[in-house]
């Protein structure tokens, strides 16, 4: 029995192909198994580590499932009132122009209660990064209809499906902010497959690089699932997302700067 190798025997520095970024803390994630938030957190943290900006990055957590994001990123963070993250970020970046500032917001936070703060920060071209997690539902409060809930989609406040006649249509706020001259880079990504994770990470890297070059507001939407709120298994939720969310919220760059000088 004494010949059984220990983890330390097997896992040697030269054999490591992957390890957890030091920009994530060891706190246990509060997200449901199968949710995309954890993956989104990881690639943001990896980008911060790879760019070497951990000591000068300030993040803003929203209200919603990711309200506790500050428990998971090992950086200085502020928690904003519901929807107000872009207002905080505007002031922080203007007062500390040499820092990297990002907000992390869900669809209810960014596209309902915080619409004004979102649109105006984008329109002013304030030089920070908005990371927008769109899962088409209010997850934290128990699966209510969000501004991005699809037509016909059931939620606890649209139990018979979203009726666009009385409840309005889903808001494509990402396309909307792409119209504004203040945004330099607007893209829509996903994190449900390894390929999408790689693309999303590249997009986040670009967003932070553009911020470093003072090019204006960079906006990264990540279409994600909410298997708990959608009342599906994680796998079914991802398939449902591909079949229903992606046709309405197509992935890819919506706006890129004229010249890529990186």
């Amino acid at each position, binding site marked *: 029995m004494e010949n059984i190798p220990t983890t330390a025997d097997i896992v040697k520095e030269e054999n490591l192909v992957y390890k957890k970024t030091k920009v994530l803390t060891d706190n246990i994630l509060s997200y449901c198994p199968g949710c995309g938030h954890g993956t989104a957190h990881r690639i943001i943290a990896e980008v911060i580590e790879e760019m070497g900006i951990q000591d000068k990055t300030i993040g803003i*957590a929203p209200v919603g499932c990711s309200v506790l994001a500050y428990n998971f990123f090992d950086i200085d*963070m502020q928690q904003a*009132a519901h929807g107000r993250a872009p*207002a905080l970020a505007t*002031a*922080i970046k203007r007062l500390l122009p040499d820092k990297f500032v990002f907000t992390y917001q869900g669809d209810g936070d960014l596209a309902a209660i915080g619409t*004004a703060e979102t649109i105006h920060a984008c329109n002013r071209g304030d030089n920070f990064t908005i990371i927008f997690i769109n899962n088409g539902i209010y997850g934290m409060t128990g699966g209510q209809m969000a501004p991005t809930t699809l037509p016909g989609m059931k939620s606890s406040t649209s139990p018979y499906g979203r009726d666009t006649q009385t409840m309005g249509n889903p808001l494509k706020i990402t396309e909307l902010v792409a119209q504004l001259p203040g945004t330099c880079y607007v893209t829509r990504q996903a994190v449900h497959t390894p390929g999408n994770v790689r693309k999303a990470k590249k997009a986040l890297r670009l967003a932070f690089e553009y911020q470093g070059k003072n090019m204006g507001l960079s906006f990264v939407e990540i279409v994600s699932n909410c298997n708990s709120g959608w009342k599906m298994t994680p796998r079914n939720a991802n398939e449902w997302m591909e079949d229903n969310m992606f046709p309405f919220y197509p992935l890819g760059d919506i706006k890129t700067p004229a010249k890529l000088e990186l």
Partner: protein
Amino acid sequence: MKKELRLMKGNEAVAEAAIRAGADGYFGYPITPQSEVLEYLMAEKPYERTGMVVLQAESEIAAINMVYGAAGCGKMAITSSSSPGISLKQEGISYMAGAELPGVILNVVRGGPGLGTIQPSQADYFQAVKGGGHGDYRMLVLAPASVQEMADFTLLGFELAFKYRNPVMILSDGALGQMMEKVELPEPVPCRTEEEIRQQCPWATLGKPANMERNIITSLNLESLKQEQHNLKLQAKYAQMEREEVRYEEIMCEDAEYLLVAFGSSARICQKTLRMAREKGIKAGLLRPITLYPFPQKPLFELARRVKGILVVEMNAGQMIEDVKLAVCGKIKTEHFGRFGGVIPSPSEVLQALEQKIIGG
């Protein structure tokens, strides 16, 4: 630049005082009768003088949240508005109190409720002193009665906000904001460097140095027992304010038989009333609370033992009188006289009320 004498509006005095205090940021939204604060700052270009950032926000809600973000970085930030706009800021003020963030909020009060009027009023006393936003919190409330105090309390406001890590409100009104008076402006101090802020505010989110713990600014506690501990910590802070920060002025109180209690513009009017009363042989005095929270309870209690009656004069339907009654514990007759809706009482009206409600009543 050194100390300087100028003739200014109260709103302008706050703006200039903020620059000279070394404030890092002003965030505001236009509303009458306080728009001169933003206008003055935009014209003055303080970013060229001291590096101070001035931004016209998309709403009062955004403006107070900009103050929150700035304060979370240990920066000195100020916003101003008038009554309807201050209502919009209440969410942010509550979050600042919860997250223990320093900041100065100027309310140039106008008549309400609703859109009300644009003329001076003191109808926001309850909102400022008793809460306004949600949750068990207090805000230090300073009540200037002159353009000089508009400037002075801007500096004092920052000092107290950082001493207690708590929002401070300057509760003025449309008269104080709009009227011009001589004001002595303080010698300017530069904005603090990042190093100085890190020293003074070790809690600030300025970017986490490699060898240090991260800083988190939040008002959230998911566990009720932790939230209760946080509430107890806040209450201890408010108790310290009540012990150390009570400010008030007594005018002609030594031999007073009748006492007027008034703050801000009402106190200015009452000073004239005092002279008129004394000419008629009525020994009247005035207690002017300068801090509305913490309220000068003890001096009022002491005076209540010596005078025959108290008239509380306010430009509202009777708000501070509740705190006066609490302080005097029903010992003596306490009545209210107020004009409201933007109407300013005249000194003779106040004297008449004193004679009818207190002396003759």
